[in-house]
């Protein structure tokens, strides 16, 4: 289901449209272009009706409502997010990105909307960095970058949803993924039967502030998104989305 929340009022939508046309910082037709992931539950996925859904999708819509702009959500793979935003193909990305120096050199980051760490899922006995361990991560993720940098035998996938199959097929011994998506992975019935062990990874490269990326040519949009974050965190819409998708508070 395409969640509109406070946007489901036609009159309000037309007001938003009118306001959006007045915003000079945005694309020509007044629509804010937003990049989202798919196949990464519970953050972003395509629901039964074929519409984008998930925590980050909800946050993106809440931000657009708070900024009183109309947003157009486009699905891209994680690997394309930073290059596309850096190239100005999107005004911002509603993707949880760890704030790393490499990314910061290419795009603008909003203020952190929560803090995260990473999770190592492995067959029992396979510790992080164990010799010969084959590890999988999503291409373009901080986790993939970290694993590769460690010299581990690393396999990349396009989407988080591809990871369980790799584990179940025995093609990898471990996966490295962010805290939020690990919650869904852990609930996969196929995974549960494998009796995998989890290790929380708190290394600096794998934990810390999580933000949205903004077109580097639009610092004023970054300001507006920051203010919108303040607002949705104050008015409760952030926490409602949080409760909808997670068993605990993202902070």
């Amino acid at each position, binding site marked *: 289901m395409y969640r509109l929340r406070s946007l489901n009022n036609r009159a309000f939508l037309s007001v938003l449209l009118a306001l959006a046309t007045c915003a000079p910082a945005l694309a020509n037709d007044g629509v804010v272009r937003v990049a989202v992931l798919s196949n990464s539950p519970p953050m972003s996925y395509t629901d039964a009706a074929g519409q984008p859904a998930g925590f980050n999708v909800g946050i993106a819509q809440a931000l657009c409502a708070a900024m009183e702009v109309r947003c157009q959500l486009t699905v891209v793979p994680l690997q394309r997010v930073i290059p596309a935003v850096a190239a100005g193909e999107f005004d911002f990305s509603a993707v949880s990105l760890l704030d790393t120096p490499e990314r910061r050199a290419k795009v603008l980051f909003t203020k952190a909307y*929560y*803090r*995260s*760490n990473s*999770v190592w899922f492995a067959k029992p006995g396979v510790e992080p960095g164990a010799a010969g361990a084959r590890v999988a991560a999503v291409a373009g993720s901080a986790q993939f970058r970290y694993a590769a940098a460690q010299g581990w035998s690393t396999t990349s996938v396009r989407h988080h949803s591809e990871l369980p199959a790799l584990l179940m097929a025995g093609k990898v011994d471990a996966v490295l993924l962010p*805290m939020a998506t*690990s*919650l869904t992975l*852990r*609930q996969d019935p196929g995974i*549960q039967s494998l009796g995998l062990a*989890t290790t*929380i990874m*708190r290394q600096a490269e794998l*934990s*810390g502030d999580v933000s949205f990326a903004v077109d580097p040519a639009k610092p004023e949009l970054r300001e507006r998104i920051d203010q919108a974050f*303040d607002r949705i*965190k*104050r008015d409760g819409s952030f*926490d409602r989305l949080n409760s909808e998708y997670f*068993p*605990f*508070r993202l*902070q």
Partner: protein
Amino acid sequence: MAPRFFPERWRNGGWPAGKAFAFIGGVFGSIFLALLIWLAADQRVVLERSQRLLDKTVPSTLEQFRLARNVEQLRLEGERVLSGPTPVARQQALFIVSLLASHPALLADARAAALAHEVEAFLARAARADSKVDDSAEWATLSNRLSLLADDVSIDGVNLATDDLRQMAATMASSRVRLAIVLAVVAAFVGAILFLIHRYLIRPLQAMDEALSALRSGQASKPFATALMREIGAVEGAIGELREAMHEKEQAARQLLLLATIDDLTGMFNRRHFMALADEEIKRAQRYDRPICVAMADLDFFKQINDNYGHAVGDLVLQSVAQVIEKTLRQSDWVCRYGGEEFAFLFPETGVEEAHRLADRLCQRVARNPLELANDVCLPITLSLGLADVGSASLAAALRRADTALYEAKRQGRNRVAIAPLATAAADPASSSVEPQPPAAGPDPPARSRP
């Protein structure tokens, strides 16, 4: 009196009102501006604090609430680890416990981090299948501690906002005191301005109004104290000058009136004035049918006195006789110097007999009052008098008859009174003609020449 700290120029010349009020306004304006800045400082503090409350404190409070919620969530997941329906559910709960215990936001709070670590360690141990120890008592303690910590974290979050609000309330209270002070200063200034306006503008204006009213009603008001305000002082000065000018004009008018009605030498009415008054009086007497007499008198041998002793003595004689006449006549009788040594009389409400007695007395008194000259010479003076009852005749006719009687008195030997016979219509052919010419003007007609 202006206070000493004002410039000498002002103290002596009065204040220029415009400058004085501009000065007062300027001083107050500066004070008021300073007070406004003082007030604005409080408002700025309140605004800053409320902005900080909105931007920083409320988000921090909400973060504390989220942390409290996570601590509580840790307890709930712990319950599931210990009493979950299936091993999978218990494993899933333990996974969430480990995620929570490693959550960067939770680790940022020392109390929460320590307790979460303890809880995670306990639950991991308890989840092991081989554990046979009854650990429900330890969990009850940990669970209780988690609940208490959640409460503490929530209260800490509320206190963040409470501190800001308390500071804002204190600032508002101080702001109220400041506002009261500012209002008091404004009230004092308005009071002072009203006092100054009353003292230095309204009261001088009222005094001027009184002075002008007094001038209008003909009284010359006394000059007032000079006002402190220069402009007011100028108007007061102008009113003073006006008052002086009106006073002088009044004096001059009075003087003119005297000159027009009084004979210089004797102080008696002059002939013209007498004629006007007498004419009115006779008309009134005739209208009401009242008795009225006229008389003409002439000093005896006055020409000889002038010739022998000079005109100065002649003038003295005239003055002396005038005094005797003034003293002898009644208040209602009128007399004038008719010309030269001639006098004319009018006796209202008086019949011929009474007038006669009065005229006799007058002659006697004049005769008893000779003029004493410096060289022990006593100059006798006598008066001849012709009396006529006016009756229905005109003033001119009556005077002419009195003049005729006077001539008769002269003829009879002077120093006496002669009465004109009663007028008849036939005997008064010139009743509408002009009055007889005074003997002083031009050469005497032969019939009227006197010795």
